């Protein structure tokens, strides 16, 4: 889902940088006030783990491959603002050092994977756990959150491509359909892995799931 340079019109790139910057401001301000000594090693560990996990490409349909994004687990353990900061660091290193994702499209990539791919899973997970306190509610929320977040991130990537009429003249419907179809499969994989990890944490390190979350106050943040 890493959009390279040249695929998006500069106007779309600019809009996406501005939209993402608004979230960056809130995320860094919140983190500077709330981040504690217990969260920092967990944040560093999970960020490194998902950077490494993104190197594992497993085959899916149509001869393509997929890899974990990790945003949902980051959001569910540390909160969406921490997830956004982590994904920003991963995407920045990938773009600058490896050319995985563009520089002009960096704002769009962070928006798709670091805002949509983090906030949507967190909101779905939060709603599910508020509706049902049971273990199945928790796991269903983790699975559904990751799945919906992944598909919506792909839909946004498709929209950005489809609206870039100068660079990618194939229209919104073609771009969104192509991205969403494949990412439905990828999202199921992300959902299963997310539910398994959340389940393991609940059994072995419940304290890590109960850390204060770096999230907006309207999402129950501290």
């Amino acid at each position, binding site marked *: *889902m*890493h*959009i*390279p*340079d*040249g*695929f998006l019109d500069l106007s779309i790139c600019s809009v996406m940088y501005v939209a993402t910057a608004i979230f960056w401001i809130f995320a*860094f301000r919140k*983190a*500077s006030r*709330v*981040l*504690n*000594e*217990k*969260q*920092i*090693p*967990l*944040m*560093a*560990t*999970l*960020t*490194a*783990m998902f*950077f*490494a*996990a993104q*190197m*594992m*490409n*497993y085959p899916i349909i149509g*001869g*393509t*491959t*997929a*890899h974990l994004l990790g945003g949902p687990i980051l959001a569910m353990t540390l909160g969406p603002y921490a997830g956004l*900061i*982590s994904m920003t*660091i*991963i995407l920045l*290193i990938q*773009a*600058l*050092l*490896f*050319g*995985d994702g*563009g*520089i*002009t499209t960096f704002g769009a990539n962070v928006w798709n994977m670091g805002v949509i791919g983090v906030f949507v899973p967190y909101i779905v997970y939060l709603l599910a756990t508020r509706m049902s306190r049971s273990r199945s509610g928790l796991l269903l929320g983790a699975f559904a959150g990751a799945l919906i977040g992944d598909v919506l991130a*792909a839909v946004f*990537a498709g929209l950005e491509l489809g609206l870039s009429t100068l660079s*990618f003249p194939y229209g919104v419907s073609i*771009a969104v359909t*192509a*991205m969403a179809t494949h*990412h439905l499969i*990828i999202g199921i994989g992300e959902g299963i892995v997310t539910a398994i990890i959340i389940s393991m944490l609940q059994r072995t390190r419940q304290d890590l799931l109960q850390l204060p979350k770096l999230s907006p106050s309207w999402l129950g943040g501290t």
Partner: protein
Amino acid sequence: MAGGRRLLAFGLVLSIAFVMVGVLGFSNSVETLDQVAEHLGATESPVWSPPIPDYEIHGFEGNATANIAIGIVFTVVVLVSTYAVGKSLRSFKSRA
């Protein structure tokens, strides 16, 4: 603090395992977006020449040892960078 160190060590070991599995078994990357773009005839226009394009050092393409080394080194870079960002943000809190 000891718990934090244990967590960092555990995460690092797991990350190295991910890198090794990724390089040795799942390194072939054909992303949906790349395939869709190729199918539709869209082309990249890079504005930046990355030092390690596609996670491979020039002259060592396809060399598993070099790719594992890159994966491990930059996983540590990500770990340290995130830790440093977290500490800096925390120091803002202490000063405020």
